């Protein structure tokens, strides 16, 4: 691998001229630099994947730390590079698998809307089709029991997420102000 990265491993000299420990080259900085470049590229890929996968939950993005902060050796950098590679591959596989399921669910929503009676009580949420928000499609009968008996089914689309701030609470100050301004009897 070192040769493939342009790193010269030949130390030259015949046996007897070079001490044995020098035959194992220790200056592997070009290898470390190359590994750092690879890690940078892979981190970019992982970041792009992470962004494109949002808001899907439950995908494992962890790569792990080798312990730091310190200058890492080639073996440790290699370990991080390999962990990034594995994580990217696994995330791609998982995203592709979910994309297939989400595509099927989108098809299901279209069929539900076309023929609601064929999908009684089926509910598909935005999460199931890979979108954010809280909306869901629900195949329900019109007019409750009557619609159910007569086969009057329809797909109802929920109105989305609850308001972030909730309903406005009663304002005691406002009440006091109104009472204060009320004409006295």
């Amino acid at each position, binding site marked *: 691998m070192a040769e493939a990265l342009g790193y010269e491993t030949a130390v030259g000299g015949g046996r007897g001229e070079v001490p044995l420990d020098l035959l194992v080259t220790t200056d592997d*900085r070009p290898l*470390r630099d190359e590994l*750092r470049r690879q*890690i*940078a590229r892979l*981190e*970019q890929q992982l*970041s*792009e994947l*992470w*962004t494109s996968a*949002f808001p899907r939950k439950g995908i494992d*993005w*962890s*790569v*792990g*730390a*080798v*312990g*730091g*902060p*310190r*200058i*890492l050796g080639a073996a*440790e*950098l290699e370990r*991080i590079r390999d962990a*990034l590679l594995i994580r990217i591959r696994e995330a791609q596989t998982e995203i592709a698998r979910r994309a297939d399921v989400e595509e099927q669910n989108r098809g299901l929503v279209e069929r539900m809307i076309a023929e609601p009676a064929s999908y009684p009580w089926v509910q598909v949420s935005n999460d199931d089709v890979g979108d954010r928000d809280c909306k869901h499609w629900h195949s329900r009968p019109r007019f409750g029991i009557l619609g159910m008996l007569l086969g009057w089914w329809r797909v109802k689309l929920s109105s989305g997420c609850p308001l972030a701030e909730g309903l406005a609470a009663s304002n005691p100050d406002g009440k006091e102000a109104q009472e204060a301004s009320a004409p006295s009897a």
Partner: protein
Amino acid sequence: MSSEAVPERGWIAEDVSEELAGLGVHYLVLDQGSGRSPRAVKDRLKELAARFSGAQAVNLRQQAIPWAYRVFFRHIGLDPDEQRTPVEEVALERMKKGGFPSQNLLDDALTIAIAESGVALRAFDADRVEGRLGIRLSLPGEPLEGRPGELPPGTLVIADEARPLALMFGAIGSGRGVSSKTKRTILCAIQVRGVPDIAVEEAIWLAAGVMRS
């Protein structure tokens, strides 16, 4: 050094700069400590929180400067998903708390500067620092004040000319950070490969500007 001084470039130990090209430290000394934030700073935090949306937080790691810090974290053995980069930490706090609640003038200044620039900033008590700031590897047997035991040899530290002041992107040595007694503050930016000088200077000036407001 006066408050009008320009940011100074700190030193990087030779063995560190040879391995981690592009690593730098820049700092500016301010003749003031922290304290309560004035109304203008609190308003600025609110305005910043309004601009810093969830979508922006999600896209953060695809931006050049936050990405550069993520890569650098990997290079030095940290996992940016376990120990967040400074700008991601700020973004996460924004999402958790729904805003940037004011803490004190220094922390508010750092929050504003980090969120706006993406650059990693730290602060030290200038009167507890000896000589110029720099980055080096810890020596065998060297401690970080306030932490039990010795630092593992070869740990990357922000140091002055006498001792380690803080772990890089980690804990600050006891008594070296800014406290209520601090009279002079050092604002310190850590530059990594991929972060331009101009972004680092902007980050320091942003923080200094908020501190002086």
